[in-house]
């Protein structure tokens, strides 16, 4: 919720390599040979030094997230060197930050797990996507359903605090029964955390091209909605209630300590190609007022060059590899707070929203809220801390439209 200095910042490290590019993926990823991969850790270490000089927040990072791409493709030795550089140049929480690592099932071996554990990895996030071999082939994955199950069990045996499983639903032609089987396998393995993403066809991907040619037909929205409902009902009953539109945890301590920061304007520093960063700029820097997290705080977001070669050129030259940035005034922050808040089951803290942005959402959007509550999309909840505006499962299903329906001053 809203700019606050209460939560400690997070550190994100983007590893852009993949052994093959999945046909649905639109992230900054590439297949690259040994030489480029071998020098990547050095480049990332160089960026750590560059970023440390200008990162404005003095507080320690309490999460470090290796994302990608496929960070599990980097040798543990490289990961260790990067972490060491971070500890050297940036304030890290003591005794140690919570380290996250994304891995492909085919890279998960007892040996690798042991090495990652020694690095301090506490959450291992597995790109399972499905336990069904046909679905995996369609998605262009390089593992089988059996390998995926083995990977989850291996990770659990290795003693990670949280093992997280990523799944994708809404494949063309996917039936409720097929998706239900995936969910059953997943909860049968009892991971602490589950992410279930709806397949999104992005324009500049293999699937995007196929869809444009009519060779791939997206699942109709009524069926997508049915699968979404099924996911939320099934997982809630099984003991993995949602805490965000795509994220489920068996208990609060398994919820992602890192991703949450993106949703509530906690500062984060992102390093590596395409990584995003966000920092709060105290109001005093603009208007001479001294309430850092207060009503007039601004946000500053910037993002790195997307292409590995370009990013490399910058860091080798000792320059920040920043491709773009924006300053977020209260209207933009308010808009994001609503947008992100309505994607979480906790919803939006109405009192904090009013205090920070001077907008009473219930008053300014009274008719809309009344109708959305009546339509079963939203609920107004009384918490000990105050009132919250939270989406129901039916509301989460159309979270994009919910936020857009509110009248808020648009950023200028």
């Amino acid at each position, binding site marked *: 919720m809203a700019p606050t200095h209460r939560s400690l910042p997070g550190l*994100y490290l*983007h590893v852009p390599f993949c052994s093959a590019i999945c046909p649905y993926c639109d*992230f900054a990823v590439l297949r690259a040979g040994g030489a480029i991969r071998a020098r990547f850790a050095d480049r990332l270490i160089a960026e750590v030094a560059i970023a440390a000089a200008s990162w404005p927040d003095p507080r320690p990072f309490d999460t470090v997230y290796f*994302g990608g791409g496929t960070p599990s493709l980097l040798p543990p030795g490289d990961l260790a060197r990067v972490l060491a550089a971070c500890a050297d140049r940036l304030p890290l929480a003591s005794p140690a930050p919570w380290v996250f690592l994304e891995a492909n099932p085919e890279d998960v071996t007892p040996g690798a797990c042991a090495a990652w554990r020694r690095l301090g990895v506490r959450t291992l996030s597995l790109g399972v996507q499905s336990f069904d071999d046909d679905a995996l082939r369609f998605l262009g994955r390089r593992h089988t359903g059996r390998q995926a199950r083995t990977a989850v069990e291996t990770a659990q045996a290795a003693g990670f605090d949280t093992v997280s499983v990523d799944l994708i639903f809404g494949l063309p032609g996917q039936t409720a029964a097929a998706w239900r089987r995936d969910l059953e396998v997943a909860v049968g393995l009892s991971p602490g955390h589950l992410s279930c*993403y*709806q397949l*999104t066809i992005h324009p500049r991907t293999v699937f995007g091209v196929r869809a444009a040619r009519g060779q791939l037909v997206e699942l109709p*929205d*009524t069926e*997508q*909605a049915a699968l*979404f409902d099924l996911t939320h009902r099934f997982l809630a009953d099984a003991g993995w209630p949602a805490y965000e*539109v*795509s994220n489920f945890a068996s208990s609060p301590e398994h919820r992602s300590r890192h*991703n949450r920061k*993106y*949703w509530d304007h906690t500062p*984060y520093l*992102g390093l590596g190609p*395409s*990584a*995003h*960063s*966000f920092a709060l700029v105290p109001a005093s820097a603009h208007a001479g007022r001294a309430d850092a997290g207060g009503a007039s705080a601004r946000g500053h*977001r910037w*993002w790195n060059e997307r292409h590995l070669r370009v990013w490399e050129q910058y860091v080798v030259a000792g320059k920040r590899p920043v491709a773009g940035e*924006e300053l977020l005034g209260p209207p*933009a922050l308010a*808009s*994001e707070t609503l*947008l*992100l808040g309505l*994607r979480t089951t906790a919803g939006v803290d109405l009192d904090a929203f009013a205090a920070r942005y001077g907008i009473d959402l219930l008053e300014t959007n009274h*008719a*809309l809220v009344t*109708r*959305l509550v009546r*339509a079963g*999309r939203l609920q107004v909840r009384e918490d000990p801390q105050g009132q919250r505006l939270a989406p129901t499962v039916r509301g989460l*299903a*159309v*979270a*994009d*439209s*919910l*936020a*857009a*329906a509110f009248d808020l001053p*648009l*950023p200028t």
Partner: protein
Amino acid sequence: MDQQHIRNFCIIAHIDHGKSTLADRLLELTGALSTREMQAQVLDSMELERERGITIKAHTVTLRHRTADGEEVRLNLIDTPGHVDFSYEVSRSLAACEGALLVVDASQGVEAQTLANAYLAVEQGLELVPVLNKIDLPAAEPERVREQIAQVVGIDASESLAISAKSGDGVAAVLAALVERIPPPGGDPGAPLRALVFDASYDPYRGVRCLVRVVDGEMTVGQPVRFMGVGHDDQVAELGILTPRAVPVERLGAGEVGYLFAGLKELRRVRVGDTVTSSRQPAIAPLPGFREAKPMVFAGLYPVDSTAFGELREALEKLSLNDSAFSFQADTSQALGFGFRCGFLGLLHMEIVQERLEREFGLDLITTAPGVEYRVLTTRGEVVEVSNPAQMPDPGSIEAIEEPVILATILTPDAYLGGILKLAQERRGEQISMEYLGGGRVLLVYRLPLAEVVLDFFDRLKSVSRGYASLDYHLDGYRTGDLVRLDLLVNGEPVDALATIVHRSGAYQRARGLAAKLGEMIPRQLFEVVIQAAIHNRVIAREVVRPLRKNVIAKCYGGDITRKRKLLERQKEGKKRLKRLGRVDIPQEAFLAVLRVET
């Protein structure tokens, strides 16, 4: 210039039969413009005209031609607008000529519009010179088309010219025929001045420019003149001829064609068809045929952004300076806010005005469904003219409603006759005549309610005849009809801008079609949307737009929240272009849904 060395002519042709190309060739051959100066189809100078390949405003050019005998003859080509909406302007252009080139595509044959204009020309005593164009096309059938011209138009086509305007073949013979076959202008040079205004346009620097044909007497610079129809006295500031560049002259004599600038600054004060005479020595009677251009089709124009009302008013005022044929008056809609009720000559005219408002003035507009002006006889014996369905008096106070009817001429290959008869019947047409013309062509004359024609009659006619049937029409008075207002309700609220007047016999079908079409056009929203169509508060059709069930929710991952927020902002921007009625977002096109209803 003496009258013996003048020829005034126009070109009658169907769209795409090659009028503009032939005009270009004539300009080239007479050296009016060097090839280097030629821009394809010089005479269609408005951007919109060139894009659509049609001529909207008449253009005129004076050509100097030296005959084989070495005599110089001045050929005045009076270009005519090429659409049924502008038939009055066509009739005035014809009145300025002694002859016409009847250009027919040798591969297509005569079309209804050509026929209508050819009849008009014959009625006005013009000498017609048939020209078969595009004879270089493999599908050309000059003999068949020649026979058709003789039979359908009723003129001697044995000496028709065969040309290819595109390649230039045979065009020199056209020049010779113009001189030999079209009579020189009559008129009395000694009589008091009478000049016909056959076109008027607005020049932002010089004011109103009239194109005139001097019939009797002469016009000179500085002469005090009177516009007889509108009763306006003025003075000749400049006279000239168009070559096509404007070349000022001191005088225009009987039979000559040129342009006139007087002191006029407002085009509204000038009427095409008016007679200019001398103020000092006025003619006894004006030239015949003058009438006001009367709007036939009405629609509401509303700015999407309600704060742009003032801008719209200014734009309409500016546009009316060089288009006196459309009318506008401020109007309010509960659904759309402040806007204007506008009258147009026809659907094309409406589209042109709308496009010019958007293109030249950068306005974003909502147009309501086009309709006609009804005459409502009330129980108190009053006659009220109603062009906005929302303003139709209470049904209890209506004695009768009269609607405008047209006389439509349809020319079609007989293979499509069945479909056309069915269409005309559906549209409440009354057949006046049906005539087989030979060569497999049929000439139909129908009396039809104008309201049925302004919807999509032309498009439907084209589709049932695969594009082969052609249509021409003119207003033919009023007729009483069993008409009712069809109201559209969105979530129980009547939307005034969606109301239409329909004939009771077709009301159910129209209601169902309209509700279904709106159901398709209104995007799914967070709530259910109920669309109802009702007559006198009785619902006769209902359609439901089911609420949105699922968005594709992109990951908010790796901290790229900016992209997500930008998407949301774009989504909101997009919504601004929708009209929000209550809590329902209605797209602009929905207000024209009635045009898209399949019948």
